[in-house]
């Protein structure tokens, strides 16, 4: 197996078939993924793990700790609060809800894999550069492709 990028993407989705699909799509593109079934599992994983994920892909309607509860808890945690969140939902009224959650992107189910990879590319690339140099400008679009390539 080739070496993967250092940062992982946290996928939070309770439906196993959907969770596995998202994980595989991202892994095939070269990302490292940690996938969990609810918000509580995600919080305990991220609080124990270092570094934090470069991005969180968040389902809203879930068993256990749902997307709203997760987001509230995330924002209360100073270390986890800055992690960009992309919401994935089958809820037809997603836009207003997504705005209320203060997230960086939203994907309506069924998720277009190309759109998913584009969003992930933008935010994970940006986050990696933020980690390295802490710049304040945002210009991560053109670098998405190279980030999805496997290293080595």
């Amino acid at each position: 197996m080739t070496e993967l990028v250092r940062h992982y993407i946290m996928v939070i989705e309770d439906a196993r078939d959907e969770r596995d699909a998202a994980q595989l799509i991202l892994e095939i593109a070269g990302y490292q993924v940690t996938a969990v079934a609810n918000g509580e599992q995600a919080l305990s994983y991220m609080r124990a793990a270092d570094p934090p994920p470069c991005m969180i892909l968040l389902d809203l309607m879930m068993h256990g700790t749902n997307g709203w509860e997760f987001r509230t808890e995330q924002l209360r945690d100073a270390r986890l609060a800055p992690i960009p969140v992309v919401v994935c939902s089958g809820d037809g009224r997603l836009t207003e809800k997504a705005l209320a959650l203060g997230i960086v992107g939203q994907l309506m189910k069924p998720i277009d894999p190309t759109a998913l990879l584009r969003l992930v590319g933008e935010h994970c690339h940006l986050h990696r550069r933020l980690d390295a140099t802490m710049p304040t400008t945002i210009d991560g679009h053109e670098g998405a492709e190279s980030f999805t390539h496997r290293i080595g």
Partner: protein
Amino acid sequence: MATHDHPRCIACDELREESEAASRAKDDFFLTLSHELRGPLNAITGWVHVLRTRVLVDPLATRAVETIERNVQAQARLITDMLDISQVITGKLRLVHRSVDLAALVTESARSLGPSSDGREIRVETESTVGTISADPDRLRQVMDNLLHNAMKFTPEGGRITVRVVGNATNVVIAVQDSGTGIRPDVLPHVFERFWQDESRTQVGGLGIGLAVVRHLVELHGGSVSAASEGENHGATFTVTLPVREQVPSPDGDSFAAAAESESAR
């Protein structure tokens, strides 16, 4: 309500509350409908993409195809339930009775749900005295699928679902018992109501039509269905009682259609 002397305003309030509750139920229904239809589509879209982007090694390719099939079935079941509810409302649902091997039907239903059981154990116990009954096999299968699907929905991974089929000369009884989240006593009387969802458990999803379809289909068969639970986190048992009809159905299966129609039109 109009027969009371005084309570005009009480009646008004009751009516308004009823209408508001119905309106809320409809809003919830369409919101959940979107969620329920898009979930399986999301799994299908994702796994198709995985199949497309990589030459998969066999176990994963097989899993992709199985996952797609399972989600197609889940969505088909949802659409069937929705159409059935519409037919039930308009009194157009007809049964086509045939001779049905109940034990085989129940076993097949449990088997088909096995791949999506996610570690839940599904066990079928059938009394040997249960033979064939006269019923609509497709509708009875739908009853079983919905009951098992419902049990799985409220049973965590690793839990157990037991289906018991027992019978005597007049009745057969199918009991679906799960070790899941159970049902609160105040919620119990509502579980078979159309579009009804336990508000404390809306995260679980569902349209609130699966159990309503079960009740209507069972009643069309001249049977009854009930729900019991010792309370939250104590599991639940759904029990279907069906009459054993002496009558031998005609080969073309139309013999009960008229009766079913008049029953459904009541």
